[in-house]
Structure formats: structure tokens, C-alpha cells
């Protein structure tokens, strides 16, 4: 049913419909509305789950890992410093192959302290073994939670998943969202069947020592699962399209790319602004398009290469910086397109909540035309 709702509440609502049996989270701006809503739902018996009030994000994800290992479907949400504090547990969750789904309400990392949006937090966990989905709007944020559970819990995958959506820009914005019913979600997402779980009658151990004779194979299996997840994501997206009419079967969404000379690559809410700017530039005769990355992990190398086949220049918008190297997405795209003849220019943009407008996107096209890139865009040089 179409309803006008805040992004955080839409995500809390869909998290409820996904029937997690355990929810553990710690308050942190701008994620708090989600966990407050879930606390209400559990207290009002709308959601039959254990809601664990914990003393830190470290404890939150640790409790989630324990609950998942015991065979429960688990949900958590965090952002920024909270995710940074979970760093150690994130690697353990993936290593123990627990399909936890966690909403990341993207926010910058301190210091200096900032509560505003960029994507440095989830990007910094790119090597942890979690699937990473990025939403452009609140409808996509809502839908991706169902897909994330389905993919994560698939026995060919068994990896945890982040569903990332931009803090404040999406989380605190009211938009129309077509919210499925409980029955519809149940029809799409079956009950969780753990591949293995802690069971006193059939004891197993998780997370034990792996000597140098075994450790590398565990990491190899994680990478194989990541690669297998590509097909599972496509399948889950296609099934979703069949049931709900919104198609997420592609890991990369192409927008007006067919005859484009310059292609943007971006993730998250900025894609909406980029699309609007592209429409205006197209009206003025400029051949510009967008390749929106919906799945950053696994990185959609094949789809992205195919989508960019005809372009001469790629402008990557990175709402993060891998200090000492460049934007995380730009670096990967450069490696991917090495030797293709396509020019890849990277733009570090919108850090710490710096606003991006359509005219900024147009200005970046002008820079890309001149071959000027690999730079911070929109710096206030007067305060440097």
C-alpha cells in the first residue's frame, strides 16, 4: 500500500515484516528512529522478537552473532562510529557465515565529529565479507531489505549484508513508499532455515583456531560465496520484480547510457540528483548517462564493464576517500577499465553532508570534458 512515510520508519516497518527473531541495536544519530520504532513494535507485540537493549554497538552485533549462531533471523541497524566500533565483530560474523542483515544509515566518520552524510562508514568495511547494497530512495531502501535477507540466507551464499541508505537525506525524509503487506513479504521471503546452528544435541564449534594449514581456505570459501552471490542477487531481484513489479535483477542500473559519451558512476541518494541533471543536460544535447551501482559488494565488474562499453569518459562520484589513494569506487573502476581506452576521472564529493546540486553535476561534466578530475570537488578554498 502506498503511504507517505519517513525513511527510517519505512525501514523499521519492512524489518518487522521480515520477521527477525532477535533485534539488538544501540542508539546513534541518524539511525535511532529505526530502533525506537522496532522497540515499540516488540513492546506492543506487533513483532514477536527479542529486543535486546545493549550497552554499545560492539555488544549489539555480538548479541546478534550469538543469536544468529543459535539459529535465529537477526536484525540490527547502525551508522558511522557505531559501525566502526563493530569492525571486529563484522569480520567474525562474515567468517562464521552468519546471514545477519543490518541497515547502515550512512554517515561520515570522525574526527572532527560530524553527524551528516557520506558513505565513508560502510565503504570502510568493504573488505569484511558483508554484501553491500546501496539505495537511491526510500522505496529501494525498503525493498532491498527483503532481497538482502533472501540472498544472505541462501545456502549458496551465507554471508551477512548491509543495506545502506543515506543518513538524513533518506532516513529523515518523508516519501511515498509502496509498503508490502505481511502476507506479501511472507510469500517472497520464506522462514529462515539455518545451514548450521548451535545445538546441544548435535554440538558444533564456530570461530575456532584455524592454523596456517586451514585459514587461507576459509578466506577462499568466503570469496567464492561472494562470487556465487552475484547470480543469487540477480535471481532474487528477478523474483522480486515478478511479485512486486520493481526490478532489482541488475547489480548496476543504467540510466540513459545507450549513446552516452560521458558516464557517471555513483551510489545512493546522489543518483536521484544525477538523473535529474542528466535529463537537463540531455535536453541541451549533451550525451551523458549514469551507471548506478546498487551492489558494491560483490563488486559488479562484469555488469559495469558491459554498461560502460560505449563511453569515452567515466566520472566517478565518491562520497568517501581512501586516504593516500583516492575514492574507493574510483580506484576499483580504474583497475577494472585499465587498458580499455576509457578515461576514468574520480571526484571526491559531498563529504560530511556537503550538499550536491544539479549544477554541481553539470560542472563536473564540464571538468570531465576537459579531462580534469581525480580531485575533491566543491572545496571551500577560502577556509584552507
Amino acid at each position: 500500500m502506498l503511504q507517505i512515510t519517513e525513511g527510517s520508519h519505512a525501514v523499521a516497518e519492512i524489518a518487522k515484516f521480515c520477521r527477525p527473531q532477535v533485534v539488538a541495536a544501540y542508539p546513534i544519530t541518524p539511525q535511532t528512529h529505526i530502533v525506537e520504532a522496532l522497540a515499540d513494535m516488540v513492546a506492543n507485540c506487533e513483532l514477536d522478537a527479542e529486543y535486546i537493549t545493549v550497552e554499545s554497538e560492539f555488544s549489539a552485533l555480538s548479541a546478534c552473532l550469538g543469536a544468529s549462531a543459535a539459529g535465529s533471523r537477526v536484525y540490527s541497524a547502525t551508522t558511522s562510529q557505531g559501525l566502526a566500533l563493530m569492525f571486529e565483530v563484522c569480520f567474525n560474523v562474515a567468517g562464521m557465515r552468519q546471514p545477519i542483515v543490518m541497515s547502515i544509515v550512512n554517515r561520515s566518520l570522525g574526527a572532527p565529529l560530524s553527524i551528516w552524510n557520506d558513505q565513508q562508514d560502510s565503504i570502510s568495511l568493504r573488505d569484511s565479507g558483508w554484501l553491500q547494497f546501496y539505495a537511491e530512495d526510500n522505496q529501494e531502501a525498503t525493498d532491498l531489505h527483503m532481497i538482502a535477507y533472501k540472498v544472505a540466507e541462501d545456502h549458496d551464499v551465507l554471508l551477512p549484508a548491509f543495506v545502506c541508505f543515506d543518513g538524513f537525506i533518506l532516513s529523515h525524509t518523508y516519501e511515498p513508499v509502496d509498503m508490502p503487506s505481511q502476507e506479501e513479504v511472507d510469500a517472497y521471503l520464506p522462514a529462515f532455515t539455518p545451514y548450521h546452528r548451535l545445538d546441544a544435541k548435535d554440538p558444533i564449534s564456530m570461530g575456532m583456531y584455524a592454523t596456517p594449514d586451514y585459514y587461507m581456505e576459509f578466506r577462499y570459501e568466503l570469496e567464492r560465496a561472494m562470487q556465487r552471490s552475484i547470480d543469487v542477487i540477480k535471481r532474487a531481484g528477478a523474483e522480486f520484480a515478478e511479485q512486486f513489479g520493481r526490478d532489482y535483477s541488475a547489480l548496476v542500473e543504467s540510466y540513459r547510457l545507450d549513446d552516452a559519451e560521458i558516464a557517471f558512476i555513483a551510489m545512493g541518494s546522489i543518483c536521484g540528483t544525477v538523473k535529474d541533471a542528466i535529463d537537463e543536460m540531455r535536453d541541451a544535447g549533451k550525451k551523458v548517462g549514469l551507471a548506478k551501482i546498487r551492489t558494491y559488494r560483490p563488486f559488479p565488474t562484469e555488469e559495469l564493464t558491459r554498461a560502460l562499453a560505449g563511453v569515452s569518459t567515466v566520472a566517478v562520484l565518491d562520497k568517501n576517500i581512501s586516504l593516500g589513494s583516492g575514492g574507493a569506487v574510483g580506484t576499483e573502476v580504474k583497475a577494472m577499465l585499465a587498458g580499455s581506452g576509457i578515461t576514468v576521472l574520480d571526484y571526491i564529493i559531498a563529504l560530511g553532508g556537503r550538499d550536491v546540486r544539479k549544477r554541481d553535476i553539470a560542472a563536473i561534466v564540464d571538468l570531465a570534458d576537459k579531462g580534469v578530475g581525480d580531485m575533491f570537488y566543491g572545496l571551500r578554498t577560502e577556509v584552507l
Partner: protein
Amino acid sequence: MTSARDWLRTDRLPHIYCTGCGNGTVINCTLAAISGMGWERDETVFVSGIGCSSRAPGYIQTDSLHTTHGRALAFATGVKLAKPDLNVVVFTGDGDLAAIGGNHFIHACRRNVDMTVVCMNNQIYGMTGGQGSPTTPMGAQSTTTPYGSAEAAFDLAELAVAAGANYVARWTAYHVKELTKAIATGLQTPGLSFIEVMTQCPTNYGRRNKQRRVSDMIEHMRTHALLIEKKRRLESEGTPIPEGMFTVGELVRRARPAMGVRR
């Protein structure tokens, strides 16, 4: 001799605290105690974590470290042990100190690091909008405990006593004179001094817990604070202590070996 006002960064005012918040009172009492110490501003460092309490150093004219959530005491330990000549004062809150930073709290007390820790205990996560904290009383309402908290609350001052702090006192934002005096004693005592201040959060605690007006909250603190000496007397007489009372006063003053004390 300076006055409390000399320590304020007036160019940073007005502050961000809500109308009726008790944190300003606690800052005022702390600065009043400090101004009586004869300290120089450039030999004094304020350290804080995250939360409403931790905004305080931003309004004070000294060097300060506004650190990550819960870690103020670990950062402060580094400051003090690297430069024992500095006076180190930590502002923290119940969420910061007792939840996410609980481990640092007990170990800083155990090591008895020479610093003064002022904890603004408003019994709630104020800055993020009123979620239940480890000091939210059992039964109290918050945004994460809509039908009342089912968990027992920490007694932070008793925890500090058990963990080994040299000086521990608890007062409230109502008891400004006693509080100022306790902070001054804490500043003078070598080792870790812990001063817990019960303070009102009308925005996120009071209005959800039948204390709608700021005056209701202050009246509640006044009428539910039980002087430690009186508590001990009642206990020795076998007189039952009414429910909902909390002790105030000096819980401990001792001279355990301490770290980072100036030679």
C-alpha cells in the same frame, strides 16, 4: 583567583542545551570549584566522550579533547600519564560512562589515575532522543522501553567505590553548594575522583516520567536525595528506607596508591 566566568568561552554561547537542562548548573559548579584551585587555563585539560554532557568542554577556555563515545577516560589516562603536570578533568554522562564506556570506567578507577571525573547522570540518552540507559530506573519510560525499563539500574558511585577510586561523591543539580564543594575536594584529592551528579533532562526524561515541569524534576531530586550519614543511621537502627531514595554525600575518601600523581 579567577571566577567561573573567566573559564567560559563566551563566544561559543548560547549553548545547545535545552531549556531547563541541568548540565549548565553542573558546568557552573565545576568551573566555580576549579576557579578556587588557582590553576592556570593552559595547564588544565578537559576531556569528554559523546553526548550532551560531552559538549561541555566546547564552552570552556582550555585545551580539550572531544573524543569517541565512551572512551573519554582512556584518552584522559593517556593525557595524564604523558604529562602528569596537566590537570585533567573529564565530563561524561551515564550513557557514555556506564554503557559503552563501562569497561574504561572500572579500569580507570582500579588504576586510580589522578583525574577528576564529573558524570552528569540524567538517566537517559538525551542527545539521541531519550533511549533507556544503564541508569534508567526500573519501570521508567524511554523511547526504547515504552512500557517501562525491565532492567536494574547501575549505582555509579557505588561502582566507583568498589572499583577503587580514591574519592567518590554524589550530589544533584539541586545541591549546588554541596556539589561545588565535592568537586573541589575531588580536584584536590590525588588519584581518581568521581563525582556523580543527578541532573534533570526535562526534554527526554521528565516529560515521559510524570515530571512534566523542570521544577517537578528538581523537587524530585530534592525530596529523594538521602544523605549518606542519615542512610547509615537508619540502617543501623533497622529503619526501612523508603523506596526510590538515592544516597548523596561523600561515599569514600581514601589514599590508595594512584597513577599519574605529580611528584
